[in-house]
């Protein structure tokens, strides 16, 4: 592909957005297909309208693990545009999002339905939609039936609507319909940053407060030419790994509960709380609210706190090892985990899975190592993958990651760099664009931000890992027993609010 059609940047680098090559849509679409075939991932596909009456502009953010860089290319988006999905399924959810927000149509999209059922947006549409009512896939025939659940589920979880197309007990296909948590965050971010911006970011997905806040702060720092100190970056990474451990522990406990293995369920629920309390030790809040801000962090660590953290982590390590190894050594648990909800590595690549779900298919993808940022440029986290692609793999990768994160945090606490934790904030520059990626506990978080002539956000695009992975859950359910849904669902544990925004 000709290099003038592409712009190469690194993770968190800011560029003047006039430098973006704007190419004809056929070439744009070919570049996406060729790059994905060559091993890149489509990390984001933001769209905005540069001039009030002008055409829509689309940017492809292709992350290329082989060389650790991001390829950007842009085009004007025709209406209708020839859908990329038939050749490149990884674009399918992105194209549905674009169609819904901008009320234009991709031609020959095989799966065109709203993903969020927007009710209000700043653009020129107000199509009357009712959440959860759309043109779902259907199967007909003797013994074919549908089971619909949600948005209000049996447990204390977020709302979503699931429709199982079944033949007897076997699921042929699962239709996932989201949007119940849509509260207008992305719309509200435009024109910022304002006083509420950081709070929107921290509540994009409450369980990923640190992940999203880090991505946001790195984007703002890039756009304004600031740099957080190594000490601040280390504290951010410590908080991020605590977030990973807490969530993974909670998931392992819940997975044990879903197969009726109550000892591990009970222990993990409690141990997860202990990890959240370690985050609260850092900043007073169990989810890390108020810790990460542009230019650094708000709270420092002292010697006494480091000792407390290390003692806390050692206790978590000991208790978690006992609780979780017990589960993985229990044949009745393994019988339910192994071979359930399999995703092949080929499918994972094709639909663009990220994070734990992808690593459980043997794909060694991790932003911390592929596109290192912050303290991960100097301190490596070892890779954690498993190859079977089933519920066991998704559970086991979590356990491997808990151990890796425990080791990482202890190392960071011992080698914490000296220096300031924050400095004065400089305003963002005009007409710049940046891509900020971090590895949240679910997987790759990608924020794409651009500024207008005054240095305010022209647009701010958030791609939560769940955005890539919800379709993976639908595929994992195929040819499974419907009773395996809770187990498969928990093995992905995707975010509804992070998707619905």
């Amino acid at each position: 592909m000709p290099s003038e059609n592409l712009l190469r940047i690194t993770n968190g680098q800011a560029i003047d957005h006039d430098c973006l090559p704007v190419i004809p849509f056929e070439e744009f679409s070919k570049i996406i297909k060729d790059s994905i075939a060559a091993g890149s991932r489509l990390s984001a596909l933001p769209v905005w309208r540069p001039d009030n009456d002008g055409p829509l502009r689309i940017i492809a953010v292709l992350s290329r693990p082989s060389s650790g860089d991001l390829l950007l290319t842009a085009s004007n988006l025709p209406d209708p545009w020839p859908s990329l999905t038939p050749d490149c399924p990884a674009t399918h959810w992105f194209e549905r999002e674009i169609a819904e927000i901008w009320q234009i149509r991709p031609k020959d999209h095989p799966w065109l339905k709203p993903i969020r059922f927007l009710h209000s947006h700043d653009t020129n549409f107000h199509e009357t939609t009712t959440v959860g009512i759309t043109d779902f896939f259907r199967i007909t025939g003797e013994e074919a039936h549908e089971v619909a659940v949600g948005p209000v589920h049996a447990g204390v979880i977020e709302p979503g609507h699931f429709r199982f197309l079944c033949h007897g007990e076997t699921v042929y296909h699962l239709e996932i319909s989201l949007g119940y948590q849509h509260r207008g965050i992305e719309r509200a971010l435009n024109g910022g940053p304002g006083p509420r911006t950081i709070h929107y970011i921290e509540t994009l997905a409450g369980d990923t407060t640190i992940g999203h806040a880090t991505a946001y702060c790195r984007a703002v720092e890039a756009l304004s030419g600031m740099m957080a100190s190594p000490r601040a970056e280390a504290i951010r990474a410590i908080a991020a790994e605590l977030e990973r451990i807490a969530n993974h522990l909670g998931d392992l406990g819940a997975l044990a509960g879903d197969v009726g293995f109550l000892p591990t369920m009970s222990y993990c629920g409690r141990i997860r709380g202990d990890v959240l309390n370690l985050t609260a030790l850092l900043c007073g809040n169990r989810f890390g609210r108020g810790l990460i801000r542009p230019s650094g962090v708000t709270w420092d660590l002292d010697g006494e706190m480091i000792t407390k953290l290390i003692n806390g982590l050692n206790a978590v390590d000991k208790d978690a090892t006992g609780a979780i190894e017990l589960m993985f050594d229990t044949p009745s648990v393994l019988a339910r985990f192994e071979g359930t909800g399999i995703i092949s590595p080929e499918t994972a690549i094709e639909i663009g899975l990220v994070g734990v779900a992808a690593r459980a298919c043997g794909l060694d993808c991790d932003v911390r190592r592929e596109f290192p940022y912050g303290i991960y440029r100097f301190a490596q986290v070892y890779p954690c993958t498993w190859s079977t692609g089933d519920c066991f793999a998704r559970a086991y990768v979590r356990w491997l990651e808990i151990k890796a994160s425990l080791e990482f945090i202890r190392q960071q606490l011992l080698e914490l760099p000296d220096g300031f934790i924050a400095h004065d904030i400089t305003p963002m520059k005009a007409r710049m664009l940046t891509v900020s990626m971090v590895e949240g506990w679910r997987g790759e978080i990608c924020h794409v931000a651009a500024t207008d002539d005054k240095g305010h956000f022209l647009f701010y695009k958030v791609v939560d890992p769940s955005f890539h992975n919800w379709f993976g859950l639908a595929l994992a359910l195929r040819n499974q027993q419907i009773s395996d849904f809770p187990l498969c669902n928990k093995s992905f544990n995707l975010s509804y609010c992070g998707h619905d925004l």
Partner: protein
Amino acid sequence: MLRIIKTRIKQKYRTMSYPDGSPPELPARFAGRPVVNRLNCKKDCDHCIVACPVDAISLSQETGGPVVDTGHCIFCRSCETACPAGAIHFSREYRLASSFRDELFVKAGSSEYPPAKNDLATKIFGRSLKLRQVSAGGCNACEADSNVLGTLAWDMGRFGIQFVASPRHADGLLITGPVTENMRIALEKTYAAVPDPKIVIAVGSCAISGGPFIDHPEQHNGAMNIVPVDLFIPGCPPHPLTILDGLLRFIGRIG
């Protein structure tokens, strides 16, 4: 089997002694109920009002000093940082819940913590309270810290409080999130499905007032605008101790 028993012994007995014993230790940096000291306020100063990202602070006609609406506050400490005179600070008081919306407003001279007891709830649900949780547009943090109460460390089952799967089996709803337009009908239907007499508990700044999303056209500024609310539990998200304390005081299990 022996291994399960061995692990069980190693994991020890972990259920906290609270409320009979002292509450679990809160972190040093915990932001609890704000305290306003009007005496420190400078004349015509509005630093705290301007600093609040969600407009939770207003000027009291009565005292002339600031009033913090803890039902709207997201406990971000912006006002505390902005105040040049130290007139607002966040205490470590975890008892934030109240059965009266008005009692969530904190001004100079406000009581240490607001009242939460509901006599009817004490009489009917004091020994058994089954709740159906409805998540309606928040960020999943309030859900997470409500769920924690079911773990063995908190074990709210010992008070007869339990989350149930069906609204038909429930005595009331525990609502989180600002109530998005996309969840409105589901919430109304779930409320209607709970048999009378029933109660509603709003957990978190979103469910009480809309929180950071207040006035977004995609949501309804809290549960109160859709269903009647009997107990308000502030926080963003509230600490599990704040939620448990609110529930226990509401049904008269503690004073």
